[in-house]
């Protein structure tokens, strides 16, 4: 089937089987390899993306369901997008990414793209950044490195900075 949607505000039109996983469409058809696969059954959250702003596991979403909608992936977060010629630098990062970098919220990095998307959705929700609220927001995203402590700190730091007027 033909599906049309946007990824990080760029329009996409593809002729693909409607049941193809959004995860595979992103990684293999569109080359957006920032989104990771950890379990393929919606348990680990490594493949988390935003669908019209809502957190979804892209391994469980058939691309047919995305037709007409807006997808946001980790590639859409940075203030300035890195490339093969110009590797990512701290200056490129948005507020949440920078908070992860400063607090140590990313270790091995494989859960990080999904964790960032869950964090972005939480920040966008405008809910007060309490410890429990942040834990609930990332409860669908498994991390084996950090014990979650510094991820929670990072999201709290980003929330504080946004409240203080940081825009990106």
């Amino acid at each position: 089937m033909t599906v049309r949607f946007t990824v990080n505000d760029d329009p996409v039109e593809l002729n693909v089987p409607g049941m193809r996983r959004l995860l595979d469409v992103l990684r293999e058809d569109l080359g957006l390899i920032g989104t990771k696969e950890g379990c393929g059954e919606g348990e680990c959250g490594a493949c988390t993306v935003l669908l019209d702003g809502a957190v979804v596991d892209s391994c469980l979403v058939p691309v047919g369901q995305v037709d007409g909608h807006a997808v946001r992936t980790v590639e859409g977060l940075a203030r300035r997008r890195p490339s093969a010629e110009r590797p990512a630098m701290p200056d490129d990062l948005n507020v949440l990414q920078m908070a992860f970098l400063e607090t140590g919220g990313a270790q091995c990095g494989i859960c990080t793209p999904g964790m960032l998307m869950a964090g972005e959705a939480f920040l966008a929700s405008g809910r007060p950044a309490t410890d429990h609220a942040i834990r609930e927001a990332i409860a669908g995203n498994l991390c084996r490195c950090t014990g979650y402590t510094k991820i929670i700190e990072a999201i709290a730091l980003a929330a504080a900075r946004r409240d203080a007027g940081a825009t990106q």
Partner: protein
Amino acid sequence: MTLRTPSPPAIDRAPLRREGPAKLTGTALYTDDLVFPGAWYGQTIRSTEARARLLDVELDPAFDWSRVVVVTAADIPGPNIVNSIQDDQPILVADEIRHHAEPVALVAAPDRTLLQEAVAHVTLRTSPLQPVLDPLASGQVFAHYEIVAGDIERGFAEASLVIQGEYRVGHQEQLYIENNAMIAVPRADGGVAVHGSLQCPYYVHKALRRSLLLSDAQAQVIQAETGGGFGGKEEYPSILALHAALLARACGRPVRMIYDRHEDIAATTKRHPAIVTYRSGVSADGRLVAQDIEIVMDAGAYCTLSPVVLSRGTLHAGGPYACPNVRIRSRAVATNTPPNGAFRGFGAPQTEFAAEMQVNRIAEALSVSPRELRRRWLYRPGDTTPTGQVLRDSVAAEEVLDRAAEAAEFERVRERTAAARAGRDGGGDGGHVAHGIGLALAWHGAGFTGSGEVHLASVASVELTGDGRIVILTGSTEMGQGTKTIFPQLVAEALGVPMASVEFAPQDTALVPDSGPTVASRTAMVVGGLMIGACRRLRAVVEERSGGPFVDTYRGDARDHGATRIDEHFEPYPGVEFDDTTYRGDAYPAFGWASAIAEVDVDLDTGEVAVRSVVAADDVGRVIHPVLAEGQVEGGTLQAVGYATIEEIKLHDGRYLNDRLATYLIPTALDAPRIETILVEAPFGGVPHGAKGIGELPMDVGAPAVVAAIHDATGVWIHDLPASPERILAAIHARDGAAAAVAIDPGSLR
């Protein structure tokens, strides 16, 4: 409750993670992110029995096999052996299947659909054999040790209190979020390059050379960004690289072998299950006078690293306590289950769980605070371990215990929980959720055991290139713990240059030397020490030639003299000697020390445990990077909490039943306690920077602290891990049932 807004750490003490921006923008390249045009997809055909004779690998004649490649044991050019400690594990089964999910054949195809079709047309013809599934019934011993100090009989003769226990701990899956993954690419010289998720490039390199009959240069191993290891990518990548390389050789194209979660859990190594039988004797004046310990570890079907896992478990089994009369006997045995291997802690978490259970139970029997008892018994400088090692410096058992106990207000909270428990026991309404606090203390040898570091003979290098760049050359890998950040920190400090001027060469065996494996909490201490040594020599060479400070003259020196590369080779630490045959001497160059205090809520109706907080004090010698060091403690602590409470592999006929992430559970952010980390610094004098290991320490203390807290809440001891709701309820019911029986007829229990 509103979270205190954290402030970012000072940049000079905690520089930003080197590869952080790439990871945070989704541009870091993990194995499955690498593109090789024309690559085929590979898959493993695995056994479905625990033990059987392999009669034939049948290829359905109705299928067109010309479109795919199939590899069996007969296609292996060299020895059909996965290089490790023993030559027992085949790359592909040739004759006898020894465990469920064992690799028997390999298939590769140009696309996934065809691959699935081909796999469906392969049949394994087998004839069943009787499996051995109970480690206590196993007659095959991979390794055994005995450590004796003093006179165990005399020790128990002196004891007025003897506490005995049997403790059983099960498998634990490393559960790195990135599954095992490898891509093999044929080289023009007839060799192969593998790109993979791995901890130890030179382990894989050796395995490829040996079984594919390749030269050093023909076998090339390149680490891709690695999404967690925890020991699970120490030895397993060797067999996966061999599989991918065999397929690439067969089809003449790159071959991708990316495990899914199900295959990764079903087939790859786990933490060794163990049965630890422990008898401790205490004298009338409260001294620890005897420890008699027997350890059985279930190695699974092949030896893998079991001898060294068992060795570490054996050496740590006494816990961090001075005792004059000790006997520790241990064995690692074969069963027809998937082989077990390295996992953070490497044998020590199993035996130190038992050691700490004993100490906590003795404290209860003596009506002494668990903290006070440990203060009496813990190792202090000058004490001697069961192998005869005199602990001369860098002994911080008391400091980590005191720091943790004070931060957690251990005694005050314990008084409160004791009062609440007394209220419940007295018939008062204590509520259905009981709060408890528990304490544990541990030691962990830094670096390889015994003379291991001497045998490794690691090399780390630094090069001033001809165009004036400073490049770190090491086989030590980054897998999230911070190698790529702390090495540039150490090098920048040793050379007196800004950290931004220091580059880190890729972990590619064609470029970097063998710095030994990235395991055993050895990277910061051992390889970091070599790195500083190399820098000091480089600095001296350049400053001698230039007559000025390195920072001002190295670019000019490179212009005038070309490249200067310094290879620093490991030299034994002075005064550290160990005899592998008698197991006497200095088992480790230094020990790290850790204490954890856990607070839990236990639902007395359901047995469910919520771990609310953990205070962890860990002595790491010297903190190189506080944020990364805390990250190690926090992550290790949560893995230990999972080990204590929910992580469990269930087996049926030698097969893992819960081999999916939907059924093997690890803690989520909602399950995770608040973790407070206290970093203690008792420097090791054998290395210039004083750093010891950190990665494994927190894994040793978390589980016994949690189980002690469960006891504090409920009054029952859980001897087997995990302390699941079922086990807790069963223990409570058994106690209440026994109490009821006493109330009815006290004589019946005599």
